[in-house]
């Protein structure tokens, strides 16, 4: 036996780490006070938090007034949520007749039910539900919201407003832009030069201009483009503008999804004898669409925020209706409350959706999304 030989027959036990490296103290040492610079930064951040949070919390919660019917109820010196509470229905539904508000509620309830069905894993018939959301539901929603048949009273679009209008604009924008986006993306990847250049020009044109000029164009130029007899509703004009604008962004999302499909899938589909449209519809698009969901959610977030621009052409979305409420002489001086409320609503929607899209991306990346 050589002198180099060393053997261990008894295995060493697992020991707990030294106290200084685990637990609250260990964590704080590693993450907050690992060296002098870090400790200074930590103290500075704590100070910053203190000077930001204490007045905010006291304004929002502790010194605030929640109930009452006029500004006289606001005596505590903090936020006057009475303003928001009193106008809450208007902020949600605009000037929609009170007796008909159930129609908006029903529409969004149906939508939420369908979207939840699509979002929750392990539920069957997802394809069918998706088809209903994209094809049947818009027609149903139109009859419910606008009325005019099935004994429902017509509610003119100038009475629409508030959060429900914001949601209608954003959802119509996304749902209607999706098919155009798919066609434009396929066109951009096509080998036909005219089709390709047409799609490139279309996409780059709309992506190159601000939404506000699109809305201006829709409200001033669209009426010039069509025969005088055709009279567009203001809301419809805004929707046309938004859909044309959004199609270009959607096309880029779809293109990203198509690029992520490996070449082998195209080759396998061709080897099976599928023609172009069959290959796209049965093999490529179903896979690509699933990969595109995070991108679609992200463009939806962007559009949802951008719908607030319609106030410039005189539609009363959530921001516009709050802005209008702020100029009410009975409630002057509560702009911070009003903006905080709108910010909160937008933030909850956008943050929620962005977390969902991140969750999907992670699921795709780790390969657990293969259902």
């Amino acid at each position, binding site marked *: 036996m050589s002198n180099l030989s060393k053997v261990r027959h008894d295995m060493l036990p697992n020991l707990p780490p030294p106290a200084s490296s685990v637990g609250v103290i260990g964590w704080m040492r590693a993450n*907050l006070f690992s060296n002098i610079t870090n400790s200074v930064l930590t103290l500075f951040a704590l100070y910053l938090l203190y000077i930001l949070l204490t007045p905010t919390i006291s304004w929002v919660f502790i010194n605030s007034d929640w109930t009452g019917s006029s500004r006289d109820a606001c005596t505590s010196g903090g936020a006057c949520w009475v303003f928001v509470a009193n106008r809450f229905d208007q902020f949600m539904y605009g000037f929609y007749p009170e007796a008909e508000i159930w129609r908006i509620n029903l529409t969004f309830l149906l939508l939420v039910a369908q979207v939840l069905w699509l979002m929750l894993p392990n539920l069957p018939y997802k394809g069918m539900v998706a088809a209903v959301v994209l094809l049947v539901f818009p027609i149903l929603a139109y009859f419910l919201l606008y009325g005019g048949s099935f004994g429902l009273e017509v509610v003119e679009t100038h009475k629409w407003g508030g959060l429900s209008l914001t949601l209608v604009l954003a959802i119509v924008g996304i749902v209607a832009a999706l098919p155009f986006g798919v066609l434009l993306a396929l066109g951009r990847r096509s080998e036909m030069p005219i089709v390709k250049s047409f799609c490139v020009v279309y996409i780059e044109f709309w992506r190159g201009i601000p939404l506000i*000029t699109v809305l201006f164009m829709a409200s001033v*130029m669209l009426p010039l483009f069509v025969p005088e007899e055709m009279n567009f509703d203001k809301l419809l004009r805004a929707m046309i503008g938004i859909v044309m604008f959004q199609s270009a962004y959607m096309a880029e999302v779809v293109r990203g999804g198509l690029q992520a499909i490996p070449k082998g899938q195209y080759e396998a589909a061709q080897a099976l004898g599928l023609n172009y449209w069959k290959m796209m519809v049965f093999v490529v698009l179903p896979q690509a669409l699933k990969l595109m969901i995070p991108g679609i959610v992200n463009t939806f977030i962007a559009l949802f925020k951008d719908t607030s621009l319609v106030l*410039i052409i005189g539609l009363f979305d959530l*921001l516009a209706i709050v802005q209008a409420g702020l100029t009410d002489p009975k409630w002057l001086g509560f702009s911070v409350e009003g903006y905080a409320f709108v910010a909160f609503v*937008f933030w909850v929607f956008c943050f929620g959706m*962005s977390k969902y899209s991140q969750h999907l991306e992670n699921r795709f990346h780790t390969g657990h999304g293969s259902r």
Partner: protein
Amino acid sequence: MQSDAKKSPSAPSTKTRFWHDPAKRALVFQILLVLGVFAVLWFIVQNTLHNLESRGITTGFAFLSQEAGFGIIQSLVEYSESSSYGQTFLVGLLNTILVSALGIFFATVLGFIIGVARLSNNWLVAKLASAYVEIFRNIPLLLQIFFWYFAVLRALPSPRQSFQPFDNVFLNVRGLFMPQPMPQQGFELVWWALLIAIAGSVVLARWSKKRQDATGQLFPVYKTALALIIGLPLIVFWLSGSPLTWDEPALRGFNFRGGMTIIPELAALLVALSIYTAAFIAEIVRSGIQAVSKGQTEAASALGLSKAKVLRLVVIPQSVRVIIPPLTSQYLNLIKNSSLATAIGYPDLVSVFAGTTLNQTGQAIEVIFMTMLVYLTLSLLVSAFMNWFNTRMALVER
């Protein structure tokens, strides 16, 4: 699908039907598309001409030389109510460029700080930075502009009760009033000194590189250059007898006169644009730095490079390639978003041209066309830059 179909016409036994030849099919399809596009365009042009005629609007760009007849609250060039619509366009364009340039500067600085803070070893700092990103990018920009304008700046006291954070600096509902530096005779020398300092720094950098190549010795170029660029003009300024006076703002009647003014519309737009865009830039910076794999940092530190040199020589050159393309598209977004100015009355291109001018003249087609052309030109320039950058900087792969 195309190759076997292309071969078959040559085979005499199976004659390809016209509709089954992909090449011909593509031709027909494209001809139909062109016809369709032209039909739509013709329909639009016909209707537009008819509508314009019945409304009595003449087309053409003659209106650009007519007198505008309205004032603009901020203008970088000479402008009055008797100026033409063409000058209105120019003023609007310059105001757009001003707010965009300032916004890009502040958003970049803030965004880089927040993005780096998100990667900090300090848990609290990292969390604060990500809270910033999550809060500000999920609230509509227009709302943020309204908040700063209506809730903050419009709520400031009147000129008589101005805040006075420093001597001769006044903040009130009319804006921020500051002393304006007025260079006197002899101040040109300071500019010359600055120019010489910059040139000297370039020479210094070259010399230091040459010396390092030859002898291996390092020279603290950045620190010396910084000292030179700041120090030399200061010394010259002092030696030449401080040839600078300040035009100080003073309360006359209901408002301040003299000095420099930042109007609240510009301030609100600038603050909102910078804060909002910085949230997106921070994400770009974070993912750009994270895109450089941990192995790169490890390999560089294993060679004995110090932390600062690892960053400068290995991490930054690689992350810049990842960061620049999305960063430029954020800049483009900022430029496009500056058009929200119109909502609070900052006189940018959309506000004074596609707004006021359009309303006064009714020349919708020409005005919208010119406005769009400006933004499209900017977009094209930016994407041209991006393509150039990508081909130049792409990492060489097999």
